[in-house]
């Protein structure tokens, strides 16, 4: 546990001593702030219209009108930003050769991976926390239901956990940060959108694809629905990718 904590601290220190954390968190909050602003202004416009034509206002509420589109957009921004956080974690150690030394200390592979994973998760937590400003403002001026908002955030957090595990895995496969980052982004994007094809393929395959889609599982969270099936999906993928990372480390012992 102490060794895991040491690796965790070292990685976190790196994020915040270099520009990485500030640039990534800064850009991420800028973008999500912009999304909040534009979505909210549009909602504002719709409410104004609705005041004159009451039938328009029937389905209008803060959750469906602001939070759902906002969280969806934030999810897409995460798709771009999380690979930037994870790509360095193991690839750089491999490139510098520090990996060899790390693995000759009395540290288990699991401790090394989890220390790094949790450090990236912490940076992500700070990012996600920073976006709470928007819903916070909503809570001050209106009275949105807190439940669906929290459920939506839980969904985003789980997506982040999955992306980071995926990123750590790709980072363990290569000594090039760029390769790790691009591969993470590509696979994450594919997992995000794979559900779209379910509209065209046969009914059986459609169900399978929908089950694989990150987006489809996120949808119920953003509606305020916490479904054990969806939680299981994200937790399973996270554990799966971390397990693959462990195996990949083990194979470096055997191959190099």
């Amino acid at each position, binding site marked *: 546990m102490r060794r895991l904590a040491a690796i965790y601290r070292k990685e976190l220190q790196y994020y915040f001593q270099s520009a990485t954390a500030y640039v990534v968190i800064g850009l991420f909050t800028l973008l999500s702030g912009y999304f909040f602003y534009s979505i909210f202004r549009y909602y504002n416009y719709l409410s104004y219209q609705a005041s004159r034509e009451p039938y328009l206002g029937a389905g209008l509420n803060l959750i469906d009108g602001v939070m759902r589109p906002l969280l969806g957009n934030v999810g897409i921004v995460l798709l771009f930003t999380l690979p930037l956080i994870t790509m360095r974690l193991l690839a750089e150690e491999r490139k510098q050769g520090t990996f060899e030394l790390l693995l*000759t200390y009395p540290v*288990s592979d699991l401790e090394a991976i989890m220390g790094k994973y949790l450090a990236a998760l912490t940076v992500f937590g700070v990012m996600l926390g920073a976006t709470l400003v928007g819903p916070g403002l909503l809570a001050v001026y209106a009275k949105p239901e807190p439940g669906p908002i929290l459920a939506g955030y839980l969904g985003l957090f789980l997506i982040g956990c999955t992306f980071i595990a995926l990123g750590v895995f790709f980072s363990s496969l290569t000594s090039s940060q760029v390769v790790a980052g691009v591969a993470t982004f590509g696979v994450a994007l594919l997992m995000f959108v794979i559900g779209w094809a379910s509209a065209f393929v046969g009914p059986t395959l459609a169900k399978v694809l929908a089950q694989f889609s990150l987006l489809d599982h996120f949808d119920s969270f953003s509606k305020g629905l916490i479904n054990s099936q969806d939680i299981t999906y994200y937790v399973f993928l996270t554990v799966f990718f971390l397990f693959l990372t462990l195996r990949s480390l083990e194979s470096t012992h055997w191959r190099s």
Partner: protein
Amino acid sequence: MIQVENLTKYYGLTVGARNLNFTVDNGEVLGFLGPNGAGKTTTMKMLTCYLPPTSGTAKVNGFDIIERPMEVRKRIGYLPEKNPLYQEMAVDGYLEFVGELKGVPRGSLRSEVDRVVERCGLGTVSRRTIGKLSKGFQQRVGIAQAILNDPEILILDEPTLGLDPKQIIDIRQLIKNLGGDKTVILSSHILPEVSQVCNRVIIINHGELVAVDTPGNLRSRLKKSAVIRLKLRDSEESNRAAETLGAVEGVVMVRVDSSAGGVMNLTVECPPERDLREEIARTLVERRIPLLEIYTEELSLEDIFLQLVTEEVS
């Protein structure tokens, strides 16, 4: 104490190390000698549990490298060949990090870091960023992390690689000071280094063990013939020197190497088991040939190394 038994490593079809057998006693400094790609680094990587052997095994202080790698890792300090360090960290921050990983008790972490900083002469740079230090200081940081938590065994892969002569002397002195209470394995292809620092030498070539012995024994073992060199003052008598010496019992061959500036250089070959210096000196004095110098030539480690490695090839 390290016992290596039939240690073998193949990279695909390429041999990294084949059937290595040797032991290293406590407190001994053992030198690994061999050309580039001979299997020195491979062997070290196996002993530090980074690479698993294809077959065979080794025991480090009684712990098997395959069955009890964590116990082995706790007892080993390792300096890899390229001395990989986290360039962005400060020296003391890095050493504290390594200390935590090596399981130095929390209470004594600070004092342990101070100890290795002191021992490796890093006091003046302990707050600086590693990446900004000179190569020599970086190498000391590498050794500092290896000796952190006082491991019983040190494995140093080419510890003086890429340093300037002054730094090389410093690092060698550091390693010499470490020997005695620690078991040290160090690899090198700089031969004088090995003969200066090590109690015993292992010569490896093409992944196979060619010889294990003390530098001194290796020398005498390889002496096919002893060579005595002579300097004589050039005179009428000395022209007969070659002839005279050829007649001394036991001399195999006499050769006049050069004769210039009133000094004549001769080489006398004789069988390795007999020291003919006395005989030769007496003969020369009796014949009134003016003798200036007489000495036997020791085989340098370079010669031994080349002989062994070449024999192996042929």
